[in-house]
């Protein structure tokens, strides 16, 4: 078994129009810029994207939105240093937004990966973000019922991988990546380094290969923050 794929282009080539795509990262940290840019080149449209944010500047997720490929965004915080792309699309009614509290977003994704169709959380009870959702009381405290989130594809960024798709991450770039790996039918990981099977200590594997379908090496991945400071634009 070898899950490695030769190029980012090949890795995303079968993502169809209308797909639901989770994209890892928190802001630029852990954002799989090269996979997102490959998705822009690929050109799939009418996507539903799940990410914590809504992109920054004119690269990565912001660029994907700028190209008009995203119909709907599910996120917690669509603001950034330079949020102009999303803001304009949203205010022009060109993109739908489902705003989800960050912890609920993480838990819904984890639930999708863990086969838990719904759960109760105190988060958002009594707020506008709970409108229309079932509520229940446990031991006298009120909770909101939330549903799992799943995706057709997850695009994630990791540090090391082996051919079975076992992954490690780099510092806070871990964030949403491991849980999105669990929640997608097809998980595609860009990794800085593909190492021989057995090189990753079994104690240190963060995402076991069972959650990963494709691995593509991007040896020196770009950082959204650095690109934006250089005012980069993609494509």
């Amino acid at each position, binding site marked *: *078994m070898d899950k490695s794929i030769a190029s980012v282009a090949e890795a995303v080539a079968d993502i169809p129009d209308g797909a639901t795509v989770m994209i890892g990262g928190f802001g630029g940290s852990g954002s799989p810029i090269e996979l997102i840019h490959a998705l822009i080149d690929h050109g799939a449209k009418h996507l539903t994207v799940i990410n914590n944010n809504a992109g920054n500047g004119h690269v990565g997720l912001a660029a994907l939105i700028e190209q008009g490929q995203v119909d709907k965004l599910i996120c917690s915080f669509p603001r950034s240093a330079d949020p102009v792309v999303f803001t304009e699309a949203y205010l022009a009614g060109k993109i739908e937004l489902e705003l989800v509290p960050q912890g609920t977003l993480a838990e819904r994704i984890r639930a999708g990966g*863990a*086969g838990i169709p719904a759960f109760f959380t105190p988060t958002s009870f009594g707020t506008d973000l709970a409108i229309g959702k079932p509520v229940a009381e446990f031991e006298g405290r009120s909770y909101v019922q939330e549903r799992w989130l799943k995706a057709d594809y997850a695009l994630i960024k990791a540090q090391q991988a082996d051919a*079975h798709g076992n992954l490690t991450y780099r510092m806070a770039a871990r964030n949403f990546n491991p849980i999105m790996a*669990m929640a997608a039918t097809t998980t595609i990981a860009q990794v800085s380094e593909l190492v021989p099977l057995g090189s990753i200590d079994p104690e240190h594997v963060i995402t076991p290969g*069972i*959650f990963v379908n494709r691995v593509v090496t991007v040896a020196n991945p770009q950082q959204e923050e650095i690109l934006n400071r250089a005012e980069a634009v993609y494509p």
Partner: protein
Amino acid sequence: MTDIEAIKLSNAQIAWRAAQDIEDGAYVNLGIGFPEMVAKYQPQGRQAIFHTENGVLDFGESPAKGREDWDLINAGKKAITLRPGASFFHHADSFAMVRGGHLDVAILGAYQVAQNGDLANWSTGKGGVPAVGGAMDLVHGAKRVAVLTDHCTKKGEPKLLAECSLPLTGVGCVTRVYTSLAVVDIEGGNFVLREKIPNISFDELQAVTGAVLTTDGPVADLIVPEL
């Protein structure tokens, strides 16, 4: 009258047959006991990855006697070894793999299987100390849930039934049954016979099966090696 005890497959042979259906690279959970034998019979050139619910992926054979490390065990509490590419994780993550549908195949033993896919394999309903372990999770966790079983109980009663009489492990969860006499799929609420050992007739097989055996095409011979 054919002496079924004389011609039926051994447990090892049933396990061998089940192993032939496991694809290269499949993620597989084998139930405690008899299903564990499936690992031994993987076809040449194929390598499944075995999951044990106590938190190990990609384990290998038992260590030599005296070489056991009791922190490295499987769900049956037997000592195991690791293969390159193994990983450890905690119990909630392990059952996220199961419940989340990430396993390709789960193979379990059975007291009874019903034609709608109901499985009874955790309780004889007779009192004593009940114990369930991971069986109720595993039946909902894999893309394919297969059962390995003798076709009949030791008393000669059918284990493939119109309806289970013992407490259920799961409802409508089994997709294929490998027995000592046949390979049977569960489709649309029916037992569909796919293979039977050559020296039993369809009628003889039906006579030891507690529900109607249907066919939707030719029934292949169930041929296994001596083991």
